């Protein structure tokens, strides 16, 4: 199984809502990532978990809250988002972490904040 599964595929939420994005992989990878991608732009790194511990937080606003319940799962909790947070949110994983490994990406969650 070489897949990273993200749910939901699409999400529309109001600025007062709380929602969660989910990501799952069963490749035994120990590094998991959240990226944000605006249309026609490259992905922007948000968070990195390494061995279930948060290792990188790219100064992301606190309305985004990551969680890694175990080595296979990664969540992104969303609360009080702004319309400018509308984007494609991508989860990725790699065996150990580090830039000498290829990333395996999920198909993303297209988020619209109204």
């Amino acid at each position: 199984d070489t897949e990273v599964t993200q749910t939901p595929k699409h999400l529309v939420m109001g600025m007062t809502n709380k929602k969660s994005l989910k990501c799952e992989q069963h490749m035994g990878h120990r590094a998991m990532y959240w990226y944000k991608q605006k249309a026609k732009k490259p992905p922007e790194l948000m968070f990195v978990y390494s061995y279930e511990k948060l290792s990188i937080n790219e100064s992301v606003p606190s309305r985004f809250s990551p969680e890694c319940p175990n080595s296979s799962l990664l969540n992104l909790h969303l609360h009080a988002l702004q319309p400018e947070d509308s984007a494609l949110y991508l989860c990725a994983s790699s065996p150990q972490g580090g830039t000498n490994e290829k990333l395996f990406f999920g198909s993303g969650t297209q988020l619209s904040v109204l």
Partner: protein
Amino acid sequence: SQQGEEDPQALSIQEGENATMNCSYKTSINNLQWYRQNSGRGLVHLILIRSNEREKHSGRLRVTLDTSKKSSSLLITASRAADTASYFCATDEYSNYQLIWGAGTKLIIKP
């Protein structure tokens, strides 16, 4: 944040032709990777080339790396409609822990 450079920004060619896109960086790297993204979905890894390698092949893909010019190119031979996608390069230019992404090249293959 840092961002690598890619050119062209967009490329439109006829099916069967070859497509070449370029990626440049500013300092030094250990690795450079190429990814493909279809229609705003997930990215798919294509090739990783290390700084001590000059060329790598994978099927119809050929990647070259010129560290003296701080640039890499991705060549897709005998293009197909299914190659229509955005292509991104990514390096470890400033960090061992996170990739620096190029701006991307949007490739359109016309039937």
